[in-house]
């Protein structure tokens, strides 16, 4: 393990880290995840798109419709993670670029671990909110429905709405960045002269 962490990346590995960093930068500009609702009277669809730092789409209309079933209002202010997600990704990018410059595997591993753990946490976070919004329904609501958890990916039926949830370009870019880091750490270390630095 120590030997692994003290190792250095090959030129290719370092280039992969640059690319990974760039992918992570790019992912900030695209939605990570989307929920789309289709109904007969909304053939054009009502979308909610989650970005690293904001929630886009027709949130006002969704909130207005959701109040009938007693769902809490979705508001950016209720998601503290939207405030700092960009900084975490920024930090990972910085470490990834430092890794590319120095070639140090331990730095690269740090970036990967933060990113990987962050990604898993993010998935949990998404599930957590989906569950919270779907089950924490106001008992006074005009229309009473059994609690539900919308899927992270896939289709669901809710009254007259069919919902489609899916990961989006930003999410894929993020995932690709993390995987690139993994590939670099896994296959592109420098095997010659491992002990010279020490």
């Amino acid at each position, binding site marked *: 393990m120590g030997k692994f962490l003290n190792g250095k990346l090959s030129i290719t590995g370092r280039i992969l880290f640059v690319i990974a960093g760039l992918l992570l930068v790019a992912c900030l500009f695209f939605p990570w995840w989307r929920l789309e609702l289709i109904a007969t009277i909304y053939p054009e669809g009502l979308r909610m798109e989650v970005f690293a730092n904001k929630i886009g789409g027709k949130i006002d209309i969704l909130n*207005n419709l959701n109040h*009938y079933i007693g769902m809490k209002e979705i508001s950016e202010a209720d998601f503290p993670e939207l405030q700092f997600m960009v900084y975490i990704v920024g930090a990972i990018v910085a470490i990834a670029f430092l890794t590319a410059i120095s070639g140090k595997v331990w730095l690269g591993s740090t970036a990967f671990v933060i990113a990987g753990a962050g990604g898993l946490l993010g998935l949990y976070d998404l599930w957590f909110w989906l569950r919270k919004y779907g089950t924490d329904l106001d008992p006074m609501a005009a229309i009473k429905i059994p609690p539900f958890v919308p899927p992270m990916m896939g289709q669901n039926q809710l009254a007259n709405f069919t919902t489609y949830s899916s990961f989006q370009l930003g999410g894929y870019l993020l995932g690709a960045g993390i995987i*690139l880091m993994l590939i670099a750490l896994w296959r*592109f270390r420098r095997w010659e002269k491992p002990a010279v630095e020490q």
Partner: protein
Amino acid sequence: MGNGNFKKIALSLAGLLLGLILAVVLSSQLSPKGEVSGTEGIFTGAIASKTGVPDDIVDAALKTYVPPGEHDEYYMFSSGGHSGHVFVYGVPSMRRIRTIPVFTPESAVGYGWTEESKEMLGEWRWGDAHHPGLSETNGEYDGRWLFINDNANSRVARIDLDSFTTGQILGTVPNIYGPHGAAFVTPNSEYYMMASRFAGPVPHGTYSPIENFSEDYKCILAAIAIDPEDGEMSNPWQVLLPPWSYDLSDAGKLGSDGWAFLTSYNTEEAYTLLEVNASQRERDYIVAVNWRMMEQAWKDGKYTVIDGANVIDPLDVPGAIYLIPCAKSPHGVDVTPDGKYIVGNGKLAPITTVFSFEKFMECVENNDFQGEEAGFPIVNYEKVRVAEVEVGLGPLHTQFDNTGHAYTTLFVESAIAKWSLDTFEVVDKIPVHYCPGHLVAAEGDTVSPDGKYLISLNKLAKDKFLPVGPSHPESMQLIDLTTPKMKILYDNPVDPEPHFAQMIKADKITKNVFKIYPKDESQPGAVYTKEDARTEKNGNQVTVYMNSFRSRYYPDIVEVDEGDEITWYVTNTDFDEDITHGFGICLYDLNIEVQPGQTTSMKFVADKPGVYPFYCTNFCSALHQEMQGFLLVKPKS
């Protein structure tokens, strides 16, 4: 580095890419796009036939049928006559899409109840909408505004075509009685001219015995100027005219731009039993007005102010008005798309007379006049007249197509004549049902008409529709212009009174139409959150800032004291297409409409004590019935 490395990268990336593609494909499978396979295709290219139905009926059905979910090709804006409204139809389906209240209150949309519309309508309870005119740029419809005149109360209105609502009413315009002959807009929407149909003493309210008709009774030409930026109308100048009853007008185009042409039907100056007494002369006049010269005279200060209007005496501006003799009590006057000819529709003579603008200008330049009346030179009829087209009985109005043809309605004959602008001969005629007044062709009064569709606006329908009592609907008939012979495709009953209409390619308007009013915090009275909704009381002045969204009002209990003066703002915070709310107060004679995102207001005095329920009048949601509240008016004692 080397082949090994390259291979590794390539393999890893390929794996990654494959994963990505799989993910994208999977998620797109899950998302709904592509599932919306419509019914389109069913009608394309299919040959419809039904046993026993003649081919021409099948053909007409296919030409007018617009399948569910599809849109019409043209908008048609039709005057609602003495209903005071403008009706919007889709062509070729002839479906009525919208009623736009203009000169008359319309409770369905709160027009005449909201503060803004009450202010526009003023004291008037009805109006007589006559001739809609679309704004133009370079002689083409530009889809920005529609103008229309009120023949009864001397008003003009602008309808904004981004929202299909009345944006401005100008008037009562001083000095003018019955401004029938508007709105025929100049090629770059500088002006439209409207002249008095009825002569009368000026200003309004002046008394003069009827025997003084020729001396004291004046007709007025009012120039309505249009602000090129926002369409704001004003009446910068007027021109005094002899008491000849001006009927219709048109603006010159291309070469004849800068001139306005007005028909007159009472050069006899009769003031009683006009049916007879105004029909004595074989020819009345088309009055040609050089509006650029008049505009200059106004700028030079050559006017006197009468009742706030700057009135020019045309005798002070020699060379600005000429008379063209035209048979007989002419009704419509229409300038051809190339601007070269002026067509006078004879009404009491079975001809339309075609005048050459070029020859007219030659007469003007060479002083080739056959006389003078009321101080205006009369141009040499034999010289300016190009043709007297024998169209038939009772010619009223003419429109044009894209192949050099003119179409003239024949009221008495109940027909439309198609005639050539080249040979000036009638080439086709079609009976219509019955008694057509105006007609409208697709972009038929622009510099480049489309042809394709012609609509006959008929004054009588008789037995064409299911009987509805002694009063029959008026009727419109859609006529196919794509075939060598004109053919009626569709009959449509309409409310009174289709005086004139405009037909414009739909995409010129659809690109400008907005669907939701934008949030504007600076708007007076707007409240966008329920937390901001409130009732404020200051002495006997009460202001309600109400927030409405599916299916609630905030506040929904409003308590005031008898005699309080109430200003009630309602904001619709459903920023969602077609989610309009109404707001009606029972037994208080109040109802307004709030479109998505809009804030409107009304003012009233709570002069009746008691409890008055209010509710949403515009069906909005499954819980629309619950969208209600109470106005409590505490008695004084």
